[in-house]
Structure formats: structure tokens, C-alpha cells
């Protein structure tokens, strides 16, 4: 602590240069924050994907439905603990920009398959009692100001009703939360029986199945058994762990992790050069002063520590400000209006960012610090 005034005096020595370096580090860490939030939004499902859940979809494409009769067959396969199904609705609420996922489900089945969905017993009962009932995730309910009892009109170009209408109305009977932050609470789920009865075509079909297995270590074998069961049928299946399903979903727009790492790698390498140059220039400019410090008794290691501390202070300050600002902006919510439902800055990425800021300081400062450490006092004093 007693060395802080010395450290601070060196940082403010060239105020503009320090400020510009600080800003470049700040911007880099803001970018880190945004990319972490986008990555979380796109592949966050992987983190909460249950190890005991499998997804069964049509072998050709996710958008091709499967017969509802498959469920009985699947339930009889050894190792299967239970099943549920979902059907994509793809409707529009008021404006096409108001995107949020909507699916037709069987309430008891879906709540059993996803224990991370938290719905009060009263609301669950109301859902079971109301054929037109729907439950919405907290985020979507808050986004549109929905309250229990509201009628939610949704139009869809996919599912025309038997009477030719494309407008579906649901009664909001419940609002669910997630057991943890990474759980998507943007969905609207309504009853499959109401949906199936009302639609004009594809009756008796479902979008995909969610299978719970008794022993996750048997997931691969059970997947094979399911797919074998429907091999050579008109609707062959592809069964995979939920994590892989979420990953393949995310991969439709590329390998997010690799893209994020690539961008951040380039950004941080550039910032490393900027910060390293700032520290090196600073050390060069005050060679004589470093000589004075050594003359009055600072050891080589103390001088090394002083230069490294300056580099780390600059980097960590820029990192904290950048991460803090991005956190503030990200906390305001999904900027796409619903396309990135799990858009938030994960705590582990925040900590990683802080770690990177410290590592950046060490990497940027180590060469100038070693140079300062090796300075011979008499030579340094001549350069005052």
C-alpha cells in the first residue's frame, strides 16, 4: 500500500497516453463482455442440458414432424423413464419483431421432463383444468406486461385452424420461473390437445420427443434402440443427448465458441501490444528515475515489481471498467427483442475476464519490467 503513491504518480505521468491505453483496454473488455453474453445466449442451453435427457427428432430435419403414436413405443423401450413431446408453433404476437418461442405440450409430461421449470401447484392445476390454458416464462410475461387471466392472441402462418383462421387465443393461467438463471424463461407453452384438435392438418403428429432415461450412462445405447425401433419406417428418427441437440441447434449459425475465441484472441493480442508499448515507453522515459530508485536502495526485484504493478494496475483498471460497463448494458436485457432469450453476462465469464485482465497486465509488463530490473544503476543515472 505504501508504494501506491509512487505507482499512481507514474501512471498519471503521461495522462493522455494512459487514458488512451485505458480506453483501448476498456473497449476490449466491453467486447469480451458482449461476446460472452451472446455466446451464453446462443449456446447457454448446453450448460443446463440434462445428462438424462434425449431428444428424438425426425432423421431428415427438425422441422418434419413425427407421429404421436411413437410415444407409446418409446415408453416401452427398456431404460426409458418417461417421455414428453413438443411441437413448434412459430406464432406472432402483435408484431413479427416480438419473437419468443411457443410450443404445444402436454402439461404433466413437460413439467416432469423439465424439473428446472418452476410453476406453482395452483397454476399447474389451473393449466390442467383449462383446455385453452397456457403458461408463459417470467421474462416474456414481464416483457409484454402479461398477467394471469389475460387472453393472449397469437397468429401463425404455419398452423391454420380447421375454420381457416390463423388466430389462436390462449388463456394465461400461469407464469413460470427457472430454478437457475440459465433456464430459458421466454417460452409460452400451451396444451397440445387444444392445439391438435384445432389445427387443420398434421393432426396426431408432434415436433420432437424429450426422453428421460433412468441411467445417463446408458443414453447412447438407448438412443440406438429408439432409432433402431423406427428404422425403415416412413418417419425415421435421430436420437441424441439434449446437449448435442442444443449444440447442433446453435451450430446452424456456426461454431459460436470458435468464432468468439477467434475474435477475442485477435482483440486481446492487439491490446497486449498496445499496453506493452505503453509500459515499455514509460520505462524508457524514466530510466534515470529507475536508476534513482535503485540508488536509494530499491532492489532489482522491487523495481521489477514496481513496473509490473503499474502494468497490472492499468490493465485491471481497464478490465474492471470495461467488464462493469458491459455488465451494466447487458443487464438491461436482450437487445434483439427476444432472439437471444438467455442473453446475460455469466458470473464465470466475469471472473474469467478479471483473470484475463491480470494476465494481460503481467504479459504486457514483463519484458519492460525485466529490462528495468537489469538496468545498471550507474548507467541509468547517466540518462537522467
Amino acid at each position, binding site marked *: 500500500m505504501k508504494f501506491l503513491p509512487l505507482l499512481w504518480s507514474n501512471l498519471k505521468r503521461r495522462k493522455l497516453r494512459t487514458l488512451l491505453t485505458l480506453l483501448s483496454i476498456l473497449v476490449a473488455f466491453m467486447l469480451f463482455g458482449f461476446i460472452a453474453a451472446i455466446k451464453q445466449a446462443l449456446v447457454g442451453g448446453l450448460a443446463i442440458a440434462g445428462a438424462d435427457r434425449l431428444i428424438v427428432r425426425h432423421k431428415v430435419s427438425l422441422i418434419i414432424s413425427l407421429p404421436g403414436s411413437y410415444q407409446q413405443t418409446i415408453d416401452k423401450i427398456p431404460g426409458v423413464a418417461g417421455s414428453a413431446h413438443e411441437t413448434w408453433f412459430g406464432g406472432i404476437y402483435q408484431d413479427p419483431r416480438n419473437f419468443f418461442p411457443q410450443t404445444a405440450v402436454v402439461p404433466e409430461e413437460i413439467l416432469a421432463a423439465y424439473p428446472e421449470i418452476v410453476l406453482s401447484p395452483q397454476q399447474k392445476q389451473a393449466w390442467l383444468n383449462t383446455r385453452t390454458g397456457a403458461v408463459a416464462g417470467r421474462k416474456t410475461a414481464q416483457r409484454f406486461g402479461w398477467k394471469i387471466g389475460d387472453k393472449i392472441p397469437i397468429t401463425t402462418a404455419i398452423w391454420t385452424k380447421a375454420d381457416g383462421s390463423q388466430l389462436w387465443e390462449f388463456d394465461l393461467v400461469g407464469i413460470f420461473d427457472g430454478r437457475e438463471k440459465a433456464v430459458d424463461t421466454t417460452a409460452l407453452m400451451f396444451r397440445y390437445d387444444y392445439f391438435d384438435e384445432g389445427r387443420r392438418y398434421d393432426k396426431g403428429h408432434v415436433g420432437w420427443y424429450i426422453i428421460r432415461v433412468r441411467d445417463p450412462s446408458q443414453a447412447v445405447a438407448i438412443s440406438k434402440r429408439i432409432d433402431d425401433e423406427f428404422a425403415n419406417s416412413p418417419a425415421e428418427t435421430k436420437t441424441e443427448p439434449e446437449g448435442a441437440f442444443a449444440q447442433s441447434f446453435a451450430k446452424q449459425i456456426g461454431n459460436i465458441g470458435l468464432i468468439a475465441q477467434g475474435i477475442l484472441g485477435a482483440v486481446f493480442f492487439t491490446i497486449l501490444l498496445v499496453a506493452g508499448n505503453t509500459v515499455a515507453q514509460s520505462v524508457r522515459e524514466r530510466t534515470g528515475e529507475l536508476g534513482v530508485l535503485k540508488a536509494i536502495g530499491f532492489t532489482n526485484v*522491487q523495481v521489477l515489481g514496481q513496473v509490473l504493478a503499474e502494468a497490472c494496475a492499468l490493465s485491471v483498471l481497464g478490465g474492471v471498467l470495461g467488464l462493469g460497463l458491459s455488465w451494466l448494458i447487458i443487464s438491461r436485457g436482450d437487445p434483439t427483442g427476444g432472439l437471444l432469450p438467455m442473453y446475460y453476462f455469466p458470473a464465470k465469464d466475469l471472473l474469467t475476464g478479471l483473470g484475463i485482465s491480470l494476465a494481460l497486465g503481467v504479459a504486457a509488463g514483463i519484458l519492460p519490467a525485466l529490462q528495468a530490473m537489469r538496468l545498471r544503476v550507474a548507467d541509468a543515472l547517466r540518462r*537522467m
Partner: protein
Amino acid sequence: MSQNQSNNGTLVAVDGVGKVFHRGAEDIHVLAGLSLQVPNGQFLALMGPSGSGKTTLLNLIGGLDRPTTGSVQVGGERIDELSDRQLAHWRARHVGFIFQLYNLMPGLNAERNVELPLLLTHLSKAGRAEHVRTALAIVGLTHRAKHYPRTLSGGEQQRVGIARAIVTDPTLLLCDEPTGDLDRKAGDEILDLLQALNREHGKTIIMVTHDPHASARAARTLHLDKGQLRGEEEK
């Protein structure tokens, strides 16, 4: 340091010291077999033309550099045999340096500059503040404690430099052209101060200068030329 110096009264003993600098393929012999002794409490001036080896000798005595040959003892301790780390600790405890260009940290005010050597001690904040106050009082700059170097005159900056040199109460003060960058009046004030530190506080002072007016203040003057002692005057 005290045991040895009290036994024979010699604080600094330079014995057969040679110093060679290498510049490319060329060897430059700056000092050649130089010997001298400085008694404890003496005010010694080292005079000589540029390149005579004055500053190099001062650096060797202050442990800022090592001799190529010979030995340097200060207070009975062979400082040329100390490691870099030991030498740094030794300098912090026993030597105060005063430079021609003051060499203050521009981003620190006067009291922070004076405090620098104390950061290497175990003194508390209050203890350090007390020492700083005393050092600034001795050089007559208590009222300028909060001023930054750029707002001080040359003479005042050198006083801050002197306060920084004496704040740890070292036995030996090494001054490299302390008045070289000052006008006559300010230079005289600095010399008065150095004399007072020598006479009233018992500091041993070795001062490099090429100014006869400055060397006249010293009790003894040694003349160097081409790396060797050429003459001596004692008052």
C-alpha cells in the same frame, strides 16, 4: 558500520581500485590503481577535469558500480563483494545520494519524494511522516512540503534532494556536482547546508565538483586526473 569506523576512524578505504569500461572492442581505463582513505566525519571534495574519473570513484564508494580491480571498504565492510541485493540494502541503510540535477520524481510532491527511501524501512506511516518533517525542517522547506518539483526553484529542488538523502540518517553523503546546476546564490545556500550537515550532524560527505568555490568549503580536496590522484589540499 560503527564498530570498524570507531576502531581506526576511517570510514571509507579505497585500495588499489581500477575501473575499466568496455566500449565495443575498446577498453577505457577510467581509474587505475587508485587508493584513498576518508576519515569518519570528513568533508571531502573530489576535483578534476571532465573524464578524470570523479563520478566513477563516487559510484564505487556508493556501491552503484563495482571496481574492476582493488577493493572498496566502507565502515569496514567490503562492499565490492556484496551481491546486488545486499548492495541495495546496504545503500538504503548507509548512503545518501545528492545529484547535480536533483533527480526528483516529477509526479510526487516534496514530502513524497523525501519519503521514498523510508518506503524500504519498516517504519509506520506516522513514523515516516515524522522523519520527513524533520528532514524538511533541516533543509528549511517545511512550508513547501506539498509542492511538486516543477513548482520549486532549482535551489529548493536540491534542498528536497538533500532532505531525501538525509531522511534515513545515513553515515555517508555522496554528492555529485550538487551546485553544478545552480546560480551562485543558490549554490552557496546548498554548500552552507552541506557544511552544516557535516559540522552539526556529523555526516561524512564526499562531494564531486569542478568548482573551486565549492571545493573551498570542504576540509580536504583531492585532485584527480586520468584516473589517478594528482594532489591533495587539507585545511
